[in-house]
């Protein structure tokens, strides 16, 4: 178990160190998410009566599409100089590779969200830093990244990688996205929150299903 964890941490450490040097992933995700928030803010000419209805959708569009940019880059580093083959030659369980890449992607997504949430709160003048809302953002992100990491590994083997990932990923993650948007909307509405409970349950359920399915199927991605 220690050896397994050591290998997972080695993969995470390698990805984080690479990103700290190149800043390719987080900077592109941040710029994209910021653009989405700014454009929607002006497009909807937000007033008190409509911002609570629009804000959850804007927030999750920014998170999901910015996340897609990050996931697209996730296995590019491995593809360069044949590093994916180098990784596959190592005596390491394929699930440890999945866990390492998942943790790395999650760190990048959460870092982007940590920067974007205050900006979103300022533009939309909404209370974003409540424990429940942060929990919803975390659960939505985990579900998206769990299955996104799997499809990112699938897409990197294809020629049209950057087109293939959204085509594979978006339909599958619809349940997580719907649950995340609904739970966020219920929590941000001016009436007392009463229904985020069931949506939160749906989010947790899909997180568990997506993570388990991706964890168990990841090794088959590398079989010819």
């Amino acid at each position: 178990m220690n050896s397994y964890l050591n290998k997972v941490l080695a993969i995470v450490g390698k990805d984080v160190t690479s990103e700290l040097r190149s800043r390719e992933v987080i900077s592109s995700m941040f710029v994209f998410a910021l653009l989405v928030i700014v454009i929607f803010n002006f497009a909807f000419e937000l007033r008190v009566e409509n911002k609570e209805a629009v804000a959850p959708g804007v927030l999750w569009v920014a998170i999901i599409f910015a996340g897609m940019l990050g996931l697209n880059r996730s296995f590019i580093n491995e593809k360069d100089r044949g590093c994916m083959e180098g990784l596959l030659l190592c005596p390491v369980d394929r699930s440890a590779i999945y866990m390492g890449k998942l943790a790395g992607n999650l760190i990048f997504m959460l870092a982007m969200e940590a920067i974007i949430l205050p900006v979103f709160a300022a533009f939309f003048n909404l209370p974003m830093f409540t424990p429940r809302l942060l929990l919803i953002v975390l659960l939505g992100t985990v579900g998206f990244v769990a299955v996104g990491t799997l499809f990112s590994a699938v897409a990197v083997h294809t020629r049209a990688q950057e087109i293939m990932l959204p085509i594979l990923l978006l339909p599958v993650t619809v349940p997580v996205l719907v649950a995340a948007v609904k739970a966020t909307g219920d929590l941000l509405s001016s009436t007392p929150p009463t229904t985020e409970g069931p949506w939160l349950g749906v989010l947790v359920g899909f997180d568990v299903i997506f993570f388990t399915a991706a964890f168990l199927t990841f090794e088959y991605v590398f079989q010819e």
Partner: protein
Amino acid sequence: MTERSPEETVDGAPPALEAARITKRFGHRLVLKGVDFSLAAGERVALFGPNGAGKTTLMRILATVSSPSSGSVLVDGIDPLDEPLEARRRIGVVSHHSYLYDDLTARENLRFYGRMYDVPDLDARIVETVARVGLSARLDDRVGTFSHGMQQRIAMARAVLHDPELLMLDEPEAGLDQDALDLLVELLREPASGRRRAALVVTHHLDLGLSLSDRVAILVDGRLVFQAPSCELDPASVRQFYSRHTASARSGRKREAAVR
């Protein structure tokens, strides 16, 4: 030139590699057509063959990265299908690709791979191995700033970092200067854990292949057409044999294309 069966082992140890009736199909194209190959413990074999003969495909299968369409492989007596991690632990690979991350330093790259192989006393082992390839002064520089030859040196250090019993090299001479080639030959001749290291070297460099191998094998059009001990061969006859088979493979491919 006499062919011989390469079944003999050193000190009664199981063969470092044993492949039986390996075939590999990509779509309709049969790239490997029933290859039987064995590499005794501590033996070094040079594998020659024209472009498109299936050398890299065979090596990827033997290195457990790719699976054969049919046939079986044993690494040091271990079936990679049953115990993939144990089989991979015994193999070190140097390929056309360096398998190194440009944004990491040489030390960080080797530390990453060392952790993946559970190398004990890793930091000392990294210093020792990088000194062997003559790049101690660049240990903390990013690999992306290295020349191709320097990257290949670090790739060699990566391949022997975990002291594997079996080294596989796929055209390792590409882009290397004479010093680096000498170093490569030295590394191949170094023992692993006190015993002679087995090696399979895929190369187009006949002189290099003959000088560092105990046995030569030639793969043409997915079949092993020739195997013989290197000491019984002279470079001229191998070159002649190799050229004849390369020419016949080329004309075969032309015929195939014309039929299509």
